């Protein structure tokens, strides 16, 4: 039961260019096509904690799809965003899974995604090109969507909640022309264990962040009993959070049960804080 509640607080959004790159992920995380959304193909799990959008190829498609997914899936500040796809590389080996730690393109300044810590996966610089490139000498990784995905998600979420992972599919010794649906699907499938490791890190990150930013459970109960102005609501939420660290909800209810109005609720809670002597031996 508790695990179920925790999982329902987790929020992951995938932006993937091609269906063939997404198939293994859709199976693995039980995401199904949702016909409600028609602008792009959208998939989600039953609990609506995991969503995946097929953006199509290119920066404009990726930016539009990411924004669309944000809108329709009600993503929050605790949502983690993942871009998965194949990439060309002049440095890595065919089939390697890489995390991206620097992104450049021809138009704008460089950006620097945070990468999942304490892992042994390769971390590489990504160049996002508007046309397919076959000169692999200048860049570690090459794709056609990454920079747009990062630029948009960095506005929707924090840098630490964004992940770009690429599987090397072509390079000087692996002609891009030889790629086909079966090979792409196989490349993703071969890396699924590592992909799952990365995803589980972001799942935990999302759940932890949810715990930090969520409103105290008791807040709505109090708000329903007295009328609070907008600034009083903020004040109330902060006071409850501060008191909740060391006291249970029942104690808070006891403190305010006889209050006549919102002002006296806040006054009582402030008085509680001012009279608290933290017992450092118990925390």
């Amino acid at each position, binding site marked *: 039961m508790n695990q179920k509640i925790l999982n329902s607080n987790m929020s992951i959004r995938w932006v993937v260019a091609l269906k063939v790159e997404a198939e293994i992920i859709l199976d693995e995380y039980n995401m199904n096509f949702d016909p409600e959304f028609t602008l792009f193909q959208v998939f989600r799990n039953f609990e609506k904690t995991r969503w995946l959008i097929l953006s199509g190829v290119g920066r404009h498609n990726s930016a539009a799809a990411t924004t669309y997914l944000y809108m329709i899936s009600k993503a929050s500040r605790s949502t983690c965003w993942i871009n998965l796809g194949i990439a060309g590389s002049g440095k890595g080996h065919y089939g390697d899974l890489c995390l991206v*730690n620097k992104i450049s393109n021809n138009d704008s300044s460089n950006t620097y995604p945070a990468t999942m*810590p304490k892992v042994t996966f390769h971390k590489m610089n990504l160049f996002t090109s508007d046309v397919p490139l076959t000169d692999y000498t200048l860049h570690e990784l090459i794709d056609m969507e990454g920079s747009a995905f990062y630029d948009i998600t960095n506005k929707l979420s*924090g840098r630490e909640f964004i992940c770009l992972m690429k599987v090397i599919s072509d390079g000087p010794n692996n002609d891009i022309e030889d790629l086909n649906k079966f090979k792409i699907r196989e490349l993703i499938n071969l890396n699924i264990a590592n992909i799952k490791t990365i995803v589980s890190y972001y799942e935990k990150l999302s759940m932890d*962040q949810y715990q930090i930013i969520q409103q105290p459970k008791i807040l709505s109960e109090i708000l329903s009993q007295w009328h609070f102005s907008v600034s009083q609501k903020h004040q109330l939420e902060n006071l409850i*959070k*501060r*008191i909740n660290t060391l006291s249970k909800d029942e104690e808070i209810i006891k403190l305010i049960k006889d209050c006549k109005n919102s002002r006296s609720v806040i006054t009582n809670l402030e008085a509680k804080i*001012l009279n608290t002597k933290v017992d450092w031996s118990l925390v």
Partner: protein
Amino acid sequence: MIETIYVEKIIKEHPRTKLILSKLKKAKIIEIDRYGEIFNKRNQNFRIQKNNPDLILAFKNEGYVLPTPEGFGVGSSKNYYFSHMFNCIYDCRYCFLQGMYSSANYVIFVNFEDFDKEIEEVIQDNKDKKITFFSGYDCDSLALENLTGFAKHITNIFAKYPDVDIEFRTKSVQTEPFTSIEPLNNVIVAYSLMPNLMSKVLDNKTPSVLKRINAMSHLAAKGWKIGLRFDPLIHGKNWEKLYKELLENIYNTIPADSIHSVSFGPLRFPKEMFKDIFKLYPETPLFSGPLSQQNGVVSYDLKIEEEMTSFCSNITENYIDKSQIFKCSA
């Protein structure tokens, strides 16, 4: 362990950059133009970054030496500070750095010689005044000494100016460079301290208070002047007993003539900074205590501040001359 190091292109060939990189061979190195591309950008999460901070090696262009805020000092008429580094390897829940920067990554400025130049200019401009410099305002002075060598470098500068004091403020038990050189009378190695019970909750990733006392005892025995910084003073159940035990333990361990000064500072946050820190760490017990906002500052009630300062000062006066005791209000 630092996994990623961002290096500004302009200093990638700097000998100090090369030295630092040679000590972190396993890290992935990423070239950048300016440290501002990574550091303190919007949409970063200090708390998450703090779990595994990256290192940024950069060139500082200006503002090497700055006057300290009013109320910060240990007796000199003029006080200055400098920071060769932004951010700290420790994770103290009351630290202003949590609210100062949106990024927890470490920035180390490698052009130490520019600090030297400006420090010497300030000394020349204040020849007739008693001045003190503070290292470790935006970082811990000694915690990354093995990597940077900054304390050793800057101590050499102050060796030339025996009338000018330099304080290295720290929670580290790093005793180099001081154990390898002869003590200097104008160098103060100052330790931030609080009762162990509070420190265990609030001073994350730091050496224990006992280890800090051992380190200062070691340096005192070598002849170095020790500063004791009870800043911030933390309120809570049995605070009198806890501070009394701590103070008496220290004064019975460190000889009085090794103590340069003792200062007591209140816990204070500018209102907006408190908001940011509280958003990051709402579950911190520190914020369940009697902090309130007055005149744009979040602090304990003045009565509590004064009670705690007086209590600790009174105990200290039994061991140390009153002229060496300071109340810090910055």
